[in-house]
């Protein structure tokens, strides 16, 4: 069999697919055929490589050269230049933020890559997720083998020493969950994986499921052995069809090799997994709602206690962890708990996968040690804020979390520090906001989300959030009154105190948090009827600078409501009464004559 001299990895993560990976892959296959390179080039579709912003991405080995923002034409050129002639295609390389030179192998010199410590995402972007052999070649299923030779108590003790905490939100010690479920008497128990990732701005679970499904499957089997369960469920949202497909294939392949199913690896332990799909309900990320949904019912949370460890799926003891938590388990067993606990901070061990989204240059997925500062994440890894704008705040913990303003950029990130800042780790989504973001608008946005996603079971969440949303709408429309801020705070606290599940208990959090750090913006909206970030439409006006306007008529032609008047070569004017603040004019003006003012 001929040995390929070049291996080309092409990122088939969700981000790259949606920015055109498939047509690039086709172009790649065509080019390989055109130059008759079948014997020397091996093409591998991998999971997410992390840098979504630069997608579609492709890496050529043995050199390890990364090419970014590909089109089918680029791919053809790279094959004919790089593969055939050995010449690097300079203009498709990644920009190196720390030097003027382009970066060839970013693991040598690009901070987005060099600052990462990959544990949960260790195989992502390296292996073909559809081939179990590649996972095994990267030490896959060795942890399961090791686990089967250990006593369940020993596995749990190992997790205890590692200090691993749940990566889905609250940071509950993982070993304790396992231990509690193990100790509940009963023959029938279940292992559950919460893959109903729904926090806005979080997509690590999706990427792990799509890019390295076996790391989850292996860990769930280990969990089954440790707590004494023979069956597991993966509850995954229907919005992730690709992840579902890859999980199904993964389960099939693992079964074929005897790594799943009856008598795993010749032991007397049997374990099987089933996939259950969600259907678009954020609340199903709450564990008891998730269990209801698995049972085929409306996803409404149950009263806790009893906790799922005692009464879970079908009333049986159930262990539930999220995807990233599970993905950490195989390396802990193979490399040892001490190795894992040597990374991170005093209370938060290991690494955390963060998703960088919003107004940041390098959007995507990074795994970094706990305790890294926000400044390092934003500026070193994230490459700063685009278009020369200022960093304003970052939202962590999704709709249950809060924002962190720039005064706290040097805070080391772990579960406790984030809590002190009035937010939470959540699943690790980080939404960056620049100076053009209105914090009242952001709070309104999250509340709108919570209103839509409230399951309707508890009154405080169902109606309270709606009232808070109405108050915020009133404020952003310029009708805010003295005392509104205090009313928001009071109602928010009531909702948090009286709701049943995590969704309701945390839903006012974005409002409370933005009031805490950006009270002046609320006051500007209420007292001065002014939106400092110039976002809230009723509080802004578009104006034309007569000094700059040359009368080209471009704005008048594009205005959908004919609010702009003026003769050719004469200064134009916008009628604010008619103007809908759609912003079309500002986009077409080539002279920078149009600006937004508030009030």
């Amino acid at each position, binding site marked *: 069999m001929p040995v390929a001299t070049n291996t080309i990895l092409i990122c088939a993560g*969700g*981000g790259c*697919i*949606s*920015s055109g990976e498939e047509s690039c892959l086709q172009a790649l296959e065509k080019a390989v055929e055109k130059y008759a390179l079948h014997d020397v080039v091996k093409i591998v579709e991998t999971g997410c490589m992390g*840098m*979504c*912003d630069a*997608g579609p991405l492709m890496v050529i080995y043995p050199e390890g050269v990364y090419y970014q923002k590909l089109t089918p034409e680029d791919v053809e050129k790279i094959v004919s230049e790089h593969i055939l002639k050995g010449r690097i295609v300079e203009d498709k390389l990644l920009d190196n933020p720390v030097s003027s030179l382009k970066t060839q192998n970013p693991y040598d010199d690009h901070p987005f890559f060099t600052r990462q410590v990959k544990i949960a995402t260790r195989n992502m972007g390296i292996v073909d997720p559809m081939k179990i052999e590649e996972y095994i070649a990267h030490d896959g299923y060795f942890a399961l083998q090791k686990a089967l030779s250990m006593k369940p108590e020993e596995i749990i003790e190992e997790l205890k020493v590692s200090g691993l905490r749940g990566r889905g939100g609250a940071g509950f010690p993982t070993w304790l969950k396992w231990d509690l479920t193990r100790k509940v008497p009963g023959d029938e128990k279940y292992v559950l994986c919460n893959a109903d*990732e*729904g926090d*806005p*701005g*979080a*997509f690590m*679970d*999706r990427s792990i499921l799509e890019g390295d499904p076996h790391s989850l499957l292996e860990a769930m089997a280990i969990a089954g052995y440790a707590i004494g369960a023979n069956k597991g469920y993966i509850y995954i949202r*229907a*919005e*992730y*069809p690709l992840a579902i497909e890859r999980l199904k294939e993964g389960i099939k392949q693992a079964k074929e090799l005897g790594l799943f199913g009856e008598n795993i690896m010749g032991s007397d332990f049997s374990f099987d997994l*089933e996939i*259950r*799909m*969600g*259907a*678009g*309900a*954020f609340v199903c990320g709450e564990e008891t709602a998730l269990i209801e*949904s*698995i*049972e*085929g*019912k*409306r*996803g409404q949370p149950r009263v806790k206690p009893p906790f799922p460890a005692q009464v879970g799926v079908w009333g049986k003891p159930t262990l539930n962890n999220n995807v990233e938590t599970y993905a950490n388990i195989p390396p802990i067993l193979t490399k040892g708990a001490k190795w894992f606990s040597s990374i991170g901070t005093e209370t938060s061990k290991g690494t955390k996968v963060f*998703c*960088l*989204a*919003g*107004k940041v240059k390098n*959007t*995507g*997925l990074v795994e970094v040690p706990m305790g890294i500062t926000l400044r390092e994440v934003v500026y070193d890894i994230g490459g700063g804020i685009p278009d020369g704008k200022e960093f304003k705040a970052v*939202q962590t913990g*999704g709709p249950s979390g809060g924002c962190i303003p720039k005064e706290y950029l040097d805070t080391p990130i772990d579960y406790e520090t984030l809590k002190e800042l009035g937010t939470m780790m959540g699943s690790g*989504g980080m*939404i960056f*906001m620049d100076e053009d*973001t209105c914090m009242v608008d*952001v709070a309104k*946005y*999250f509340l*709108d*989300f919570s209103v*839509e*996603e409230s*399951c309707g079971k508890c009154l405080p969440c169902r109606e309270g959030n709606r009232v808070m949303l109405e108050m915020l709408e009133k404020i952003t429309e310029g009708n805010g009154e003295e005392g509104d801020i205090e009313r928001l705070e009071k109602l928010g606290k009531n909702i948090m105190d009286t709701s049943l599940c995590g969704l309701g208990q945390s839903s006012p959090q974005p409002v409370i948090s933005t009031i805490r750090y950006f009270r002046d913006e609320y006051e500007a909206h209420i007292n001065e009827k002014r939106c400092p970030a110039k976002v809230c439409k009723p509080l802004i006006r578009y104006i034309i600078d007569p000094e700059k306007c040359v009368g080209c008529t471009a704005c008048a032609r594009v205005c959908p409501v004919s609010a702009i008047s003026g003769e050719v070569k004469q200064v134009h004017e916008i009628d604010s009464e008619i103007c809908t603040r*759609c*912003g079309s004019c500002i986009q077409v003006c080539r002279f920078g004559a149009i600006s937004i003012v508030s009030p």
Partner: protein
Amino acid sequence: MVSDKELQAIEQIVNGVVTDESLAEGDVLINCLHEIQNHFHNFVPLEAAEKVAEMLNVPQSSVYEVLTFYTMFSVEKRGKYVIRVCNSLPCHVTGGKEIVETLKKELGCDFSQTSTDGLFTLEKTGCLGLCGVSPVIMINEEFYGNLTRDKVQEIINKIREEERD
């Protein structure tokens, strides 16, 4: 009305999902409804829901509860293409508002409505997990990222052309 032939198709779908007898307790209901919805192009006719209830031996009311609780299901006829616009913050701060405006204008309908040609239904969705390439939309099972006004128009026009041919 759903024809007898269609009812047979539903029977096949349900039997295909419920392979293991022990699972016929109703926990496969959501998976069944997904399959049926795909079969009928984005909605579940009430007759089909009744059939599922009968086959899985769960009350019709439970099936209806599920159908109306989860946003991805619809008992109303929807367009052949359901366009789901991500309405989460990462998409919002990177220009999602413009995408929504463009879609509404281009399709001539609001959220939860179907375009007059019956081709498209516009809906909101929670985070699609593609925040790295926001703003994002999902059309049936395909995702489109890094959107601009022009790209949205291009995508819609392309589908319209394909449908015309």
